[in-house]
């Protein structure tokens, strides 16, 4: 996992936890790539990524001072209510959590962060909150099993991670707020490419009505679980 920082003063001052930016770079793929904002301080924002294809490799090969095009903040973020919050993250699902800690603290809430990953090596070292719980699928660090199982109950649960993990979160906490990951085209609501299937029927747009949903509202069986951008060339 790599953290990239960008000079983006307008986004840095207005972004809320769970919102994302849509980033384009040259040379790069045709479509922009959506990233949750990981941290925002002063005039800077950060995102986290893994090199999963040619596109992200190009982004990681950039030098300090190179320019990208950064559209945002986009989407609807987490809503902070209540006196305590449990953050549940799996793998790269840590992405919106540091801002969630910030926003929860600003709302006077007590924060528990449950950190999950497949292995200890894949756990993000970033840890914040009044209480931190670690969980790994292989038991190499902390709780042996899913972060969803390791988490305590709370007034408010916010989760981000692979869609199967979010589906499990929805079973346990239908009222949890979850940030879903979808394939995305424009990021601004026009292309309808980032359709999220809903239990009430039909679809809405992860980029506009989402990416944060009430967990129980999403039809998880109809939301693809393995999404990867296929092409960079």
């Amino acid at each position, binding site marked *: 996992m790599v953290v990239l920082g960008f000079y983006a003063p307008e986004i840095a001052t207005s972004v809320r936890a769970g919102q994302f930016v849509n980033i*384009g770079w040259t040379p790069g*793929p*045709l*479509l*922009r790539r959506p990233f949750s904002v990981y941290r925002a301080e002063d005039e800077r924002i950060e995102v986290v990524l893994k090199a999963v294809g040619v596109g992200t490799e190009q982004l990681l090969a950039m030098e300090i001072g190179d320019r990208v*095009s950064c*559209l945002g903040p986009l989407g609807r973020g987490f809503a902070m209510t209540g006196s305590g919050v449990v953050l549940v993250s799996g793998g790269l699902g840590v992405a919106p959590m540091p801002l969630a800690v910030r926003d929860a603290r600003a709302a006077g809430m007590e924060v528990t962060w449950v950190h999950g990953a497949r292995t200890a090596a894949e756990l993000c070292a970033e840890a914040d909150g009044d209480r931190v719980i670690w969980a790994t699928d292989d038991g190499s660090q902390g709780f042996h099993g899913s972060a969803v199982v390791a988490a305590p109950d709370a007034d408010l649960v916010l989760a981000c991670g692979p869609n199967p993990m979010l589906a499990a979160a929805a079973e346990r906490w239908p009222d949890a707020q979850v940030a879903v990951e*979808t*394939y*995305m*085209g*424009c*990021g*601004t*609501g*026009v*292309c*309808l*490419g*980032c*359709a*999220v*299937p809903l239990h009430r*029927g*039909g*679809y809405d747009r992860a980029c*506009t009505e989402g990416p944060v949903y009430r967990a129980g509202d999403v039809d998880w069986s*109809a*939301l*693809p679980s*393995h*999404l990867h*951008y*296929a*092409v960079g*060339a």
Partner: protein
Amino acid sequence: MKPDLSVEVGSLRLRGPVLAASGTFGYGTEVPLLERRALAGMVSKGIFLRPREGTPPPRIVETPGGMLNAIGLQGPGVEVLISDYAPKWAAWDFPVLVNINGESANEYGELAARLDGVPGVAGFEINISCPNVEQGGLYFGNDPRAAAAVTEAVRRRTKLPVWVKLTPMVGDIGVIARAVEGAGADALCAINTFVGMSIDLSSYRPRLSFRTGGLSGPAIRPLAVHLAHQAARAVRIPVIGIGGIARAEDALEFLVAGCAAVQVGTATFVNPKAIEEVHDGIAAHLQAKGFGSLADLPRYLPRD
């Protein structure tokens, strides 16, 4: 002096040659950052009489220099378009054409009749070329008699401009172009997306849930320039070029190849300022070449 970029497409006078393509601009209320002075007109997201859910995800996948989409014409239906969007369009300083769809020629005609006279609706783009619906769509677009029947059904119900968006998935686009010209179309839009497929090698299945999708983006541009040129050679009515336009040079290729105007689509997903950059780039090109207006641009359009 700034060159005159205005164009006439049939009876419709446009302040420039660059329009927003259907399906890439929503209903015109969503796109950020764009300076609207550069927008000559907009074609709405495709609409049916009734609401449509669209296809299950994944709906889009990126491919080299392009993208496949299978949205399935998700939309709220014509009544919501009339109540929620048309009143906004009525206040705008550029025309909005509605991209209309149906499962039969009669449905296209009914849609045109329902929308005719609604303030804010400046004309129609008949979609006989959507590859992502089970009924209609592409079927009407690759049969000259069906294409003409749909065009006639719309023409009979409205005096507003009627444009017909053609599919590239035909043996001879000139045959379809002449058929819809004969049925009363005011202009042609060439072309809609190509049908494509992309396979996921982890699941050994198509990446799109609809299996196939429409290919757009720079990858199709040379194919589109050729087809728009073929269509322009076949008819006397104006042709609006579409296909992979991201920069002014791309648009100029279509214009030189015989198009009266162009539509920009996929590029606006990537660059919200694409339309103004294309518009301003065309102006800069004309100015640099000493042309006072777009009409002075040399065209390559030998008649058969």
